[in-house]
């Protein structure tokens, strides 16, 4: 089978083209380094099946990060390969430099001249025919996000060829690039657009910092507003009016007191089903992920998706660079951190773009400790919000302070220097509703597919363990830390143990324990910090390796004991 490699500089729209050609959805965004793993899918070229690989973006063929390494390694196999070189038409010179280098590798190639629509708007005229002649390979103008030109691209893949050029030196390559650009490109002078001026304003400190504060505040407000609105107006009524009568009937059929009733419906609170406290598979097991968490997942990814595609995140990275240096990182690390606010799994994965092992260790550890995922946050709002917004504020503050201090401590303790930020700042682009919607849908689907089974499994385990009284043994064993240091009742150990599986269920389990507001605050903070959930743990092992993972976990345990203890004393 033919293997097609989609290659090019970061942030030129490879993932969008990939989605169009294979029909497989992948997460694309407007910042360099969205794709850190390669995705592959099959596509049809005039009746023939071919394998298309979405390769992480690279500036050169000498890798400077793990993600780039993947790209360069993939090129070495050569057997039956065709490269589809995706280039950004608005940035011909830098893109062509990689193109020339790729041509020297003696692999058949075709060029997708992407972001063609933006180039036209920007007054950039490119003579495609001339470009084909200069480079000796087919060139097809495309617009990945709308799919324009993608059919032409597919129909011309057969024409992919290699002009067999000798290896050039870096200097010669730049010279040749400059010559070709002068031949094929015509720039029309024009005034900067509003988006361009806004783009510049958001990296200059004087205007950028107020803009950043406004963006963060507005994002937070919008997520809260949509999340709360969906819960109050859609999901709670759905559960109460439609699902509750069904479950009440089922409850009488199953007979309260039977094992099956305990597992499926759970405990009755004052003779009735309580979706927050009953803890049966079909009651709390469905309510937590769908009724309480999903509305926030939706709201969060709606806002994040917009910021990603608009191109805001790299600008935030520039503004945060100096602060992140204090933590041994550089500004780019703010992007995994923000992703971590949705779910720690993509957060840790995104750390792959960071250049060295030390940075990856610091960034992933402080994400797992100080960055609560949206599922945990939703449950904290749900449970602690009733006691007053101040308590929710304390949880956020405790986590934020731990994030900063731990970063700073790890930077001082682990020897090494933090590399410098080098990052392309993409232009602001108005996101298309189609791509935004598609990305949101994918992330929602991912949440339901990954969260729901683990939530249900967790609740099943809890019910069985309650039934077998296993928790009593663990409770006695862990009592010193839990009661003496954190000031929590012994039976909260079940919730903490559940934290290994899923944080939202764990916080939910605190509900029936009738804790004080202070105890809830401590427990929520500890749950956020002390250990990643099983999904995040799995990527942590994979990305850091066993040795660094052990270091990371040790730091998590110690800091949760310290911070939980401190809150218990101070509050």
């Amino acid at each position, binding site marked *: 089978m033919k293997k097609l490699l989609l290659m090019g500089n970061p942030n030129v729209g490879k993932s969008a083209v990939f989605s169009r050609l294979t029909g497989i959805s992948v997460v694309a965004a407007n910042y360099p380094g969205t794709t850190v793993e390669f995705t592959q899918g099959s596509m049809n070229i005039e009746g023939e099946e071919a394998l298309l690989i979405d390769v992480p973006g690279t500036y050169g063929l*000498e890798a400077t990060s793990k993600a780039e390494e993947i790209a360069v390694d993939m090129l070495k196999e050569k057997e039956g390969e065709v490269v589809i070189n995706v280039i950004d038409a608005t*940035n*011909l010179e*830098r893109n062509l430099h990689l193109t020339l280098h790729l041509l020297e590798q003696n692999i058949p190639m075709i060029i997708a001249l992407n972001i063609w629509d933006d180039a036209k708007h920007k007054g950039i005229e490119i003579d495609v025919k001339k470009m084909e002649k200069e480079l000796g390979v087919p060139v097809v103008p495309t617009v990945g996000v709308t799919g324009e030109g993608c059919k032409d691209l597919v129909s011309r893949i057969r024409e992919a060829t290699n002009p067999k050029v000798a290896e050039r030196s870096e200097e010669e390559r730049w010279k040749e690039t400059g010559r070709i650009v002068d031949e094929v490109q015509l720039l029309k002078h024009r005034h900067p657009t509003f988006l361009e001026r806004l783009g510049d304003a958001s*990296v200059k*400190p004087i205007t950028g910092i107020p803009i950043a504060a406004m963006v963060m505040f507005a994002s937070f407000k919008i997520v809260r507003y949509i999340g709360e609105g969906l819960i109050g107006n859609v999901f709670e009524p759905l559960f109460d009016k439609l699902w509750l009568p069904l479950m009440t009937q089922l409850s009488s059929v199953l007979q309260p007191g039977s094992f099956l009733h305990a597992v499926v419906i759970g405990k009755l609170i004052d003779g009735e089903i309580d979706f927050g406290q009953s803890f049966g598979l079909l009651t709390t097991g469905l309510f937590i992920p769908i009724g309480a968490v999903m509305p926030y997942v939706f709201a969060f990814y709606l806002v994040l998706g917009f910021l990603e595609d608009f191109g805001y995140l790299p600008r935030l990275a520039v*503004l945060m660079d*100096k602060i992140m240096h204090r933590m041994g990182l550089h500004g780019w690390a703010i992007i995994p951190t923000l992703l971590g606010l949705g779910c720690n799994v993509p957060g840790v994965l995104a750390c792959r773009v960071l250049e060295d092992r030390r940075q990856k260790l610091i960034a992933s550890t402080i994400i797992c400790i100080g960055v609560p995922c949206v599922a945990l946050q939703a449950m904290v709002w749900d449970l602690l919000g009733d006691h007053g917004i101040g308590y929710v504020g304390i949880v956020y503050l405790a986590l934020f302070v731990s994030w900063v201090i731990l970063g700073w401590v790890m930077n001082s303790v682990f020897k090494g220097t933090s590399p410098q930020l080098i990052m392309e*700042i993409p232009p602001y682009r108005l996101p298309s509703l189609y791509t935004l919607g598609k990305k949101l849908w994918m992330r929602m689907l991912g949440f339901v597919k990954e969260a729901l089974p683990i939530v249900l499994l967790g609740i099943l385990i809890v019910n069985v363990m309650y039934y077998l009284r296993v928790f009593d043994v663990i409770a006695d064993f862990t009592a010193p830390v839990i009661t003496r240091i954190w000031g929590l009742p012994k039976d909260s150990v079940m919730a903490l143990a559940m934290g290994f599986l899923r944080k939202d269920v764990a916080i939910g389990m605190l509900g029936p324990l009738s804790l004080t507001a202070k105890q809830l605050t401590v427990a929520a903070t500890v749950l956020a910090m002390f250990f990643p959930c099983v999904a995040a743990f799995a990527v942590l092992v994979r990305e850091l390796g066993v040795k660094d993972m052990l270091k990371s976990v040790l730091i998590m345990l110690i800091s949760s004991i310290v911070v939980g203890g401190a809150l218990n004393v101070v509050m």
Partner: protein
Amino acid sequence: MVKERIPLTDMNAGESGKVIEFLGGAGMRKRLSSMGIRAGGKISKVSSAFKRGPVVIKVGASQTAIGHGMSCKIMVEVDR
């Protein structure tokens, strides 16, 4: 026009010039060069964060942010 040779960090926002040399190692030079920032290339400065923050420059059509430490080592000839 008088040409002055200064590190990128000393250039004012809005000014343009030509990169003359990199005082850093080969690794830094290669990385910058693959992003289009190379000796002889024209650049203009978009902004710099106050106190040791990154510098944002424009090369061709694209903008690149470069950490302060590295920006100190990029020598430019400014058009003044």
